[in-house]
């Protein structure tokens, strides 16, 4: 058993690295919540601009936030935006992709048109416009919905492409001749074969959503009161922490963001290998 597991590690190193990185992050957040007082992520909880010390292992920022607490509190918030937006995006996108590819015709043309146009419009621009229009203080969940509004486009297109090729398969024809209806075929015949692919798409979408949300937050269009990673970077920018040499302030969020993206990236590559047997290397 252990031997088989070790062999799989060697074969799909990416997947394991991805899981390990994200696991470490989860540990950080989990233990952090137990050990650290997240209340200290609010302004004026600590003396301002202190470099890392025993009291404040990550230092403090200009508004008196303990940065360790901020990271512990903020990381799950950022991830939550990513997950909600990612799941919503892939959920809606795949349904539309399935329907569009299986039924073809007018439905397909409409959905495809929307997706193609939507993808050419610069996403960040749209998000900025939406965020700016919703002037009164954003919550984390509202951020998620804003990002989700565009996150469904790419999954719709990729799922559609996959289903288009799958619907010509012999077993779909046999299912039809055996009396299965359209929706039944989508759910029972096509979906199970797409699961690995959907998982990879999901991780991708989560990654993209986190990036989009951080982008908006850095521009100051995020939930101002929340200690998300992006907001922390906004304050870093706002207070010119780089020029002032307050390195501990920008280092922590950047390292965590790096771990998040690397973890998600390796996870994607690892899942891709499962989804696409042709990429599998022999031992």
């Amino acid at each position, binding site marked *: 058993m252990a031997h*088989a597991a070790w*062999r799989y590690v060697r074969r799909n190193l990416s997947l394991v690295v991805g899981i390990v990185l994200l696991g470490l992050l989860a540990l950080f957040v989990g233990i952090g919540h137990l050990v650290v007082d997240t209340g200290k992520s609010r302004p004026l909880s600590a003396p301002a601009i202190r470099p890392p010390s025993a009291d404040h292992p990550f230092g403090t920022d200009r508004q008196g936030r303990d940065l360790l607490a901020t990271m512990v509190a903020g990381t799950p918030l950022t991830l939550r935006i990513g997950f909600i937006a990612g799941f919503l995006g892939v959920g809606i996108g795949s349904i539309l992709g399935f329907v569009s590819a299986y039924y073809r015709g007018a439905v397909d043309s409409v959905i495809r048109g929307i997706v193609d146009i939507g993808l050419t419009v610069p996403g960040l621009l749209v998000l900025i416009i939406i965020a700016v229009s919703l002037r009164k203080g954003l919550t984390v969940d509202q951020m998620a919905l804003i990002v989700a509004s565009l996150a469904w486009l790419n999954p719709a297109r990729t799922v559609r492409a996959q289903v288009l090729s799958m619907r010509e398969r012999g077993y779909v024809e046999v299912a039809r001749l055996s009396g299965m209806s359209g929706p039944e075929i989508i759910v029972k015949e096509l979906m199970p074969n797409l699961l690995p692919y959907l998982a990879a798409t999901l991780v991708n979408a989560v990654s993209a959503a986190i990036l989009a949300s951080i982008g908006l937050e850095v521009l100051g269009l995020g939930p101002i009161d929340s200690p998300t990673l992006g907001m922390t970077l906004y304050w870093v920018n706002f207070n010119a922490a780089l020029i002032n040499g307050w390195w501990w302030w920008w280092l922590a969020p950047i390292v965590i963001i790096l771990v998040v993206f690397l973890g998600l990236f390796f996870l994607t590559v690892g899942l891709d290998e499962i989804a696409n047997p042709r990429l599998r290397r*022999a*031992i």
Partner: protein
Amino acid sequence: MRDLVVHYDTPLGAVKATDAVSFSLGAGERLGIAGESGSGKTTMALAILRLIRPPGRIAAGEIWLQDVDLMSLSPEAMRQVRLARIALIPQGSMNSLNPVTRIKEQILDALRDHDVRISRRQGQERVRELLESVGLRPEVADMFPHELSGGMKQRACIAIAISLRPRVIIADEPTSALDVVVQKQVMETLAKVQQDLGAAVILIGHDMGLMAQFVDRLGVMYAGKLVEISPVRDIFIGPLHPYTRMLIASLPSFEAKGTFHGIPGLLPLLRDLPPGCAFHPRCPHAFDRCQRDEPRPREIQPGSWASCHLL
């Protein structure tokens, strides 16, 4: 080829794709290797050219080309041998032609790869000659693969294979995707180029009818072993090995209706071979020795070898 053994390493242990296969090929001779799927015939062809990739490996055996053991050559020397001395027309080669390159480029590519330095004019002339020798019009040189029919593509592949005048041509299922009328044309082409070059041909396939009508000697493979090898007439007049006999009996003929019977049972999985003779579970004449000892090839009649305890 002497006692060639090719293994595929799997998580469950080594699988013998070919086991102690031996045969000899005379100059200008046509040898057929027939077998069904999983018999090891393609593996054997790739092994001759040392094209076996991991997880496969050549575990044992020698392959002598005239007086050189191919197994002993360096990778670079082996690369020189490929195409120039031994050419391979692989399975499905007509689908492996580069779709975005014209035919003449693909032929010239092969020449250039073997450091043949020719001027542009000489190259064009050579391409024209080659195409003519396989019965293709000179205009084909400027065409793309998708503009050609299946038979024409396959003949283009033959042209590439003979471009360096090899001594041995190995054709692996060259006509399996082609219509029967086109198949005849392609095989006629192959016979013609073989005669022009004085080369030997190893034809690998599963169509016994094709073998009967084309090759001089025929070897039959089953589960990685060469169970019989004889002059082709002898095989069809009086097959020695039960598998050969039953295989021929399973072929539909035009003589009378209702005369073809399948071989009961299933082809064995190479990783799960029965003990003793690999064919014994399906053999109507099997007796207890067949379950214990693996039969070794013996010369039953002059020029005819078979591996069976009954003989």
